[in-house]
């Protein structure tokens, strides 16, 4: 009996270990582990003791305000920075990455908001641009076949012989992803890939991401848009001030949790603006057209009103703004300012009429990056800061900059700092200061909260509300639908350069506006 018992027990123990080993084997191994990573720049701690793992076949979202340490972590993962302490473990082996080429050799690749494609090469050439094994001659046939194969794996339809120049941003990104997977990528880092994409393009991108996940690629997804994060991610990791705050499976996290973890304080919903009282019409536009860009645009803009412009990216909203501001004057139609017909041919004329335009591309069109905050703020009305000899009165200029620094709480050690050194949100406040300083009556805001963190975004929203209360007429172009809905009194929806209608805020909802922007209304009408 005893021996039998012993045998049974031994068997059981044996089975248990066998089972355990089997379980251990079948547990997924992380493909990339960051272990106690720290990194500081001088006195600034960018990352302190961060540990996280990426598993194959998982979409891992990384969220946090600007400056939370996400970019530093990515740069360490791709070998651009070396950590001060901590280990990078790839497939269980501690590894040191000294360059991005080395990271690539380990199957770690990153794509960014702005794709890095070579415009004069075709898609296939772009995909295979950094392949090491190349003969003396290009085997074009094989390259096109392979490129097609790669794109097929992503389930996208692109002509591999097409030149990269002029491809939409989304297609350029696809090319970059194809480039990465053609090099056998196992970890794909996507740094704000959706920031410049329209809703439809985001859906397409997500389809690709899901394909990659099914192939067992670990995707690290970084985005400022929480809806997207919740839609695509399996796990959400939140960073704040260089520390990892939480890392949980998506179904255990709510939107409110995520925002609270990011900013470290509970936050209300998106700032809700009270509708304003309509005053007299300042600007009215009748049948404005610009060949190839937009046509038949008509709207009235009242003092104290926020008029939202919704639509997909590339639908022509920015072009309407550019025409109103005189950068690309319209070909047809009429603009009335104070009920008088006007012909705005240059930004200078527009500024004289007290129209201001906060451009979509802050860095290219909004700022002179190497110059000081003060110099940037006074730029449009420099002549008011110079004496009869044309000599700039620095005291006056600095006073203005100082005022706006306080009014808009621009966080900077000094107004002499070049704007290049500010965070996105503070840079945007500088551009806003620059235009508020011209005392505008019409303020056109083109994507005013793109790429800025949650806190700064709310500050901008409150500011827009204040400005409207002061009687400034505001045109708000935004691809952030909740933002347009929360901030606008009325919403103009533009689709492919045509005005789909003006919706009242009281009656409009997201589905209705999205439907109009994507042309569903028109289809329904056709059927009816």
């Amino acid at each position, binding site marked *: 009996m005893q021996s039998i018992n012993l045998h049974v027990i031994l068997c059981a123990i044996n089975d248990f270990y066998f089972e355990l080993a089997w379980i251990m084997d079948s547990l997924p191994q992380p493909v990339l582990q960051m272990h106690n990573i720290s990194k500081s720049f*001088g*006195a600034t701690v960018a990352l302190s003791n961060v540990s996280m793992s990426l598993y194959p076949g998982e979409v891992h979202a990384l969220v946090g305000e600007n400056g939370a340490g996400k970019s530093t972590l990515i740069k360490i993962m791709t070998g651009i920075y070396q950590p001060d302490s901590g280990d990078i473990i790839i497939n269980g082996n501690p590894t040191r990455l000294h360059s991005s080429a080395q990271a690539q050799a380990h199957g770690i690749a990153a794509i960014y908001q702005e794709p890095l494609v070579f415009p004069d090469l075709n898609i296939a050439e772009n995909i295979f641009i950094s392949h090491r094994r190349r003969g003396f001659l290009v085997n074009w046939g094989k390259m096109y076949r392979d490129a097609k194969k790669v794109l097929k794996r992503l389930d996208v339809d692109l002509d591999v012989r097409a030149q990269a120049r002029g491809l939409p941003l989304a297609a350029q990104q696809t090319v970059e992803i194809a480039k990465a997977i053609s090099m056998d990528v196992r970890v794909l880092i996507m740094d704000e890939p959706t920031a410049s994409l329209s809703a439809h393009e985001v859906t397409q991108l997500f389809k690709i991401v899901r394909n990659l996940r099914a192939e067992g690629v670990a995707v690290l997804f970084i985005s400022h848009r929480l809806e997207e994060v919740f839609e695509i991610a399996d796990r959400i990791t939140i960073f704040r001030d260089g520390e990892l705050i939480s890392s949980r499976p998506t179904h255990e996290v709510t939107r409110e949790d995520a925002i609270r973890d990011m900013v470290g304080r509970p936050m209300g919903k998106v700032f809700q603006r009270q509708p304003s009282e309509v005053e007299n019409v300042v600007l009215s536009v009748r049948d404005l057209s610009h060949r190839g860009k937009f046509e038949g645009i008509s709207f009235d803009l009242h003092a104290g009103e926020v008029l939202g412009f919704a639509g997909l990216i590339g639908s022509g909203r920015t072009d309407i703004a550019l025409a109103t501001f005189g950068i690309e004057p319209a070909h047809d139609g009429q603009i009335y300012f104070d009920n008088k017909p006007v012909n705005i041919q240059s930004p200078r004329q527009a500024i004289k009429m007290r129209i201001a335009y906060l*451009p979509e591309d802050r860095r290219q069109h909004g700022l002179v990056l190497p*110059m000081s905050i*003060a110099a940037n703020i006074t*730029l449009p009305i420099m002549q008011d800061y110079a004496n009869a000899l044309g000599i*700039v009165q620095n005291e006056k200029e600095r006073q203005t900059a100082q005022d706006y620094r306080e009014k808009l709480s621009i966080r900077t*050690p000094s107004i002499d700092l070049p704007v290049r050194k500010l965070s996105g949100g503070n840079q945007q406040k500088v551009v806003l200061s620059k235009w508020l300083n011209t005392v505008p009556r019409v303020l056109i805001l083109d994507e005013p909260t793109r790429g800025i963190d949650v806190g700064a975004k709310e500050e901008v929203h409150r500011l827009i509300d204040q400005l409207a209360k002061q009687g400034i007429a505001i045109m708000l172009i935004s691809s952030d639908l909740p933002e347009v809905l929360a901030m606008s009194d009325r919403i103009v929806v533009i689709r492919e350069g045509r005005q789909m209608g003006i919706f009242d805020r009281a009656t409009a909802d997201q589905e209705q506006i999205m439907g109009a922007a994507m042309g569903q209304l028109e289809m329904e009408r056709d059927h009816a």
Partner: protein
Amino acid sequence: MKLLERYPWLRRWETLLFVILCAAVFINISLSEHYFNIDNLANIFHLSIEKAFVVLVMALVIINGEIDLSVASVMGLSASVLAYEFEKGASLESAISYAMLAGLACGLANGFFVAYLNIPSLVVTLAGLIAYRGAARILLEDRSVGNFPEWFTSFALDDVYVSIPTLLFVLVGLILIGTLVYQFTNLRQAVEEGAAFRFRKPGPVGLVLITVLAAVLVYMLALSSGAFEATTYVFAVLYLISLGILQFTNFGRYIYVIGNNRAGAEYAGLRVKQVKMTIFVMSALMAAFAGLMYAARVGNIRANAAEGFELDIITIVLLGGVSIFGGTGTMVGVGLSLLVVLNLRNGMSLRNINDNTRASVIGALLILSVLIPNWAQTIQRFLPRTLSGDNLTLDLENKEARESTETA
């Protein structure tokens, strides 16, 4: 490194140029007894004064993100127009005005094509370089014209004697100008951003410094009495004016802004086209004026006058720390680089080093002026973190942050 943290201006290109200048002067003194002699020093300027004039405007052109290759041809054309009219029997006064008008026409043409038709200035002014020289050749063919009236050549050739009352007058003027310049300038600011100077009132130390500087200048002026030509003094005044325009006026600010970010300037409502037009006209007018000076100094003019000068001029501007991509650089740097180049040339010719070697040395210096800042950055990247420049800027910001919280 501590030192660099406390005095960021030590990291400026201008500082390095100043060190190079001191080294060049020191070597020249030790190698040749003829060097530190007032006549030789005057000669340094005398032989290149026309180039120096054009350098001043070329700096504005390049900071604005453009280039003007046609300056030497404009110089040649203006000198040729002068010679041609004079040869035909026109009075010199009217010949001078025709020459300046020719310069104006060249400038308008350059400016029109660059600013209003958006053709790259490299192409437009290269065409200008060929076309204006061609015009000069049509006018003078292979003749040589000289025998200008005495009053004209004396401007460039005769030394100016300075009297005691003049000196006193200049002394007062210098103190006034110095105070103004010091008030408006603050080299401590704007390590990388040439345009961001800051207003500061001079303290007692500053006033003493200005006075000493002015006194030294006046003393040198007294010493130099009878050594320098009028053109050199004209250059000094023009230098101060162009420094003032670039650093302290809104026009100067526009030049920097457009050079940095043309699209941004347009979106801010700046008159980009007018600014570019103005600059090209200024450049051609200055070149035409320099062409007249050349005629006055050399005394007879052929169609190939001033040929090849544009390369020297651009070299001096770039060596002065002006970026070929536009947007950065200061007049202080350009002035220093002018002195460096002229002194090196002079020193080498005193040692009988031939012309080709001299050209090679200047070329090498230009390459180094681009390489040294690049190397400095690379070295900083590989130094331990406590020494790196990144850290330095961050510390600098923290220091400013502390200062601003203290004042708040």
